[in-house]
């Protein structure tokens, strides 16, 4: 099973169990910007129970939960990792946190139709920009900044009032200005 098959299988399980989720990280920036290679798929999900066995028992063969969950540092979110047998690709599942912006982008998520039978939930393009800038600042990661520049280039018209408001909250206004300057 390859990475994409595993991601789509997991999304099918979420649909079946009526688990709310959205695809984030580079999968989401690939939807709105210039696609690039990624070694993992990141999803935020809202699952009432801490018991993931219902999800685990539905996973396709060759996909399993890593035994240890961990914390993502920027938003202090608990993270579960799914490993694919014979592959270096991973799926990372982040529990929806109480972080204000995490709540807002989850509430504003949209359906992205991939084909007639397949759709996924993803954040709005504006919220991908906001979160990527947060990562660029907090994690000092140049690839997140490059993703932002590419999204701004590809999308063109965006709700900058919304972006500027949250960048103000996160202290990333300077980075946003830099990214916008690179697109002009």
């Amino acid at each position, binding site marked *: 099973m390859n990475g*994409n098959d595993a991601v789509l299988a997991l999304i099918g399980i979420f649909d079946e169990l009526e688990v709310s989720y959205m695809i984030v990280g580079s999968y989401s920036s690939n939807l709105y910007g*210039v696609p690039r290679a990624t070694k993992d798929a990141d999803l935020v999900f809202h699952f009432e129970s801490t018991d993931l066995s219902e999800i685990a028992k539905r996973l396709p063969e060759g996909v399993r939960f890593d035994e240890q969950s961990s914390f993502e540092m920027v938003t202090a979110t608990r993270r579960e990792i799914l490993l694919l047998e014979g592959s*270096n690709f991973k799926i990372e599942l982040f529990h929806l946190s109480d972080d204000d912006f995490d709540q807002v982008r989850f509430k504003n998520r949209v359906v992205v139709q*991939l084909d007639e039978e397949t759709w996924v939930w993803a954040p709005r393009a504006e919220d991908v920009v906001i979160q990527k800038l947060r990562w660029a600042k907090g994690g000092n990661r140049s690839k997140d900044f490059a993703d932002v520049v590419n999204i701004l280039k590809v999308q063109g018209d965006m709700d900058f009032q919304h972006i500027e408001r949250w960048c103000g909250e996160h202290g990333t206004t300077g980075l946003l200005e830099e990214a916008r300057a690179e697109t002009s």
Partner: protein
Amino acid sequence: MSFESLFGGGDDRNCDAEGTIGVFRFFEFQNFKCDAEGGKFINGARFTESGQAFSAVFWMMRGYARDMQLTDEQIREDARACLESKVRQARRMSMKERFLAGASLFEDACRWTLAGIRNQYPEWNEAECRVELRKRVEMM
């Protein structure tokens, strides 16, 4: 000579020196035995360190630029044109193509890197090569 014509074919993807296509072109250049200064670097590199395939493409470009006596401004202009080209290509892609691209490119890159590791360490067995691949992926 433009960046695109350097990488040949007029295919937008050829401009992507940071991704899998860069690795792919790297192999093609090896086959062509390019005699530019960058070509020598490529022949010496052979994936001896993680990420060197990408570096090789970069040095290839640099060597070529020197040979062609491109100015910094011309190089910047080519880089701008390259980004514009990538943006145009991204706009043409369907949502499904965009969704699937990230993992597919990664898996292609792993295949090429593994081929490079096998070439560099012919005495290693498959398991040893995969351990090395995992190390290099962790560095990404």
